[in-house]
């Protein structure tokens, strides 16, 4: 069954331009005139116009989706271009929404692009999502993933899910009436910091291409009501070994949002659910018991000849790109190499952005180091505020 039950007679007619543009669809029995008219009538929301959102939105626009909503608040950065193919070099610094909308309407001028220039939140999610038939989740963080899932369940909209890390991807279709939702698969998020983001862990540029196109395929199948959607199945992609596997997913009758007796009946505070505590300026100088030092303070102390035992917990290949004079002990080697870190001296830990080094600083504190500090912002802040010759990556 197609996702929208619109009677064929109520579907929009195809124009002469449509007939030539979509001729390769029209000769497919699974699409045909009726299917193409269903695509034209469809309203799809892409949450995020980054790695997954780029190929997803591009292919949906090409396929003849009538209305495509885009949610993003970010601007294009040079480091996005390795995978976010909807943006170009000339777009660096522009809003992703403007850059994406321009490419999509250039590809398909008949497309109606709706720009939602905002961060999806509990306050606006239901209002935004309710205007669409299908939601495609191309976000990059746990709070938004749970938010999109819960909002889709509450509104009864299918959630076409894709997620990536390094060389590995997952795809599924959640929140259909009969199928499981994201919370059936993962009832709880990992504690903050335990699962690295793409910015920390890296991602093969092609991977969001693979997974985003799978999401686009599922969106189109749902609209057409053809084929077998990824409902109740989790597709795993390992790009490094080029292996695809499939796992069975079940609807959890005790799921707090889509189960028989749901306890989540409205949107909640997803930052809090994911254990993310908002920082106040007073608190930011000490995080989880670890003093945070700014790059300016670090520079001042080095220049003043103060004793600074600076430990760089990044990986050797990152060290090759940029370094600021710290001793390199990659984060996973730290437990075995404690003997190289002097307990009698203060330890100052840094990484690329300050996230990994915070965890290692906490680990060192737990391991009995009395004085441990974290460099807030890491190499990125050093490059911005101290020395732009230190290469950002």
């Amino acid at each position, binding site marked *: 069954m197609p996702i929208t039950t619109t009677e064929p007679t109520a579907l929009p007619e195809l124009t002469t331009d449509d007939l030539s543009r979509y001729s390769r669809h029209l000769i497919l029995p699974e699409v045909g005139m009726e299917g193409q008219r269903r695509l034209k009538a469809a309203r799809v929301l892409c949450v995020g116009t980054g790695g997954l959102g780029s190929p997803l939105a591009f292919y949906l626009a090409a396929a003849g989706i009538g209305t495509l909503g885009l949610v993003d608040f970010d601007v294009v950065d040079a480091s996005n271009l390795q995978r976010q193919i909807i943006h170009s070099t000339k777009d660096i610094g522009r809003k992703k929404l403007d850059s994406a909308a321009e490419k999509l309407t250039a590809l398909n001028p008949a497309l109606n692009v709706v720009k939602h220039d905002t961060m999806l939140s509990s306050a606006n999610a239901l209002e935004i999502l309710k205007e669409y038939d299908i939601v495609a989740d191309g976000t990059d963080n746990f709070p938004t993933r749970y938010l999109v899932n819960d909002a889709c369940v509450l509104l009864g909209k299918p959630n076409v899910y894709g*997620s990536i890390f*390094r060389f590995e991807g997952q795809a599924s279709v959640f929140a259909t009436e009969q199928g499981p939702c994201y919370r059936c698969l993962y*009832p709880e998020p990992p504690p903050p910091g335990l*699962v690295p983001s793409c910015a920390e862990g890296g991602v093969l540029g092609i991977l969001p291409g693979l997974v985003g196109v799978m999401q686009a395929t599922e969106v189109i199948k749902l609209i057409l009501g053809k084929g077998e959607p990824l409902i109740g199945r989790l597709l795993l992609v390992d790009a490094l070994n080029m292996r695809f596997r499939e796992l069975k997913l079940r609807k959890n009758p005790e799921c707090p949002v889509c189960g028989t007796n749901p306890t989540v009946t409205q949107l909640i505070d997803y930052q809090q659910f994911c254990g993310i505590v908002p920082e106040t300026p007073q608190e930011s100088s000490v995080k989880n018991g670890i003093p945070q030092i700014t790059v300016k303070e670090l520079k001042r102390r080095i220049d003043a000849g103060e004793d600074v035992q600076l430990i760089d917990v990044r990986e050797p290949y990152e060290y090759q790109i940029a370094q600021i004079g710290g001793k390199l002990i990659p984060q996973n080697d730290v437990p075995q190499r404690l003997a190289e870190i002097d307990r009698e001296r203060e330890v100052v830990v840094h990484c690329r952005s300050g996230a990994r080094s915070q965890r290692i600083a906490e680990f060192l504190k737990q391991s009995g180091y009395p004085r441990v500090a974290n460099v807030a912002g890491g190499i990125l802040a050093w490059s911005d505020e101290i020395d732009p010759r230190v290469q950002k990556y």
Partner: protein
Amino acid sequence: MTIFIPTPLRSYVDGRDAIDVNASTIAEALSELTRTHPELRQHLFTVEGKLRAFVNLYLNDEDVRYLPGKEATAVSAGDTLSIIPSIAGGD
């Protein structure tokens, strides 16, 4: 049986993507895995020894949570156990 190790956990098993263990149940396979690779333990289990809520286990293509015997389910040499942690990347 073969245990598939997901990317985020490969750094704790010398970068390997699969590890073979001798075991007669899922629980035994996990205990053998964490005995030979102790660093994995804290990533898979809480301090109380419970599998973490953001890590799923699949025996072949079945979610272990829905197997009647759960982690006591018997396994044979040809079975695979997949560890599937949640990932959120997409940008």
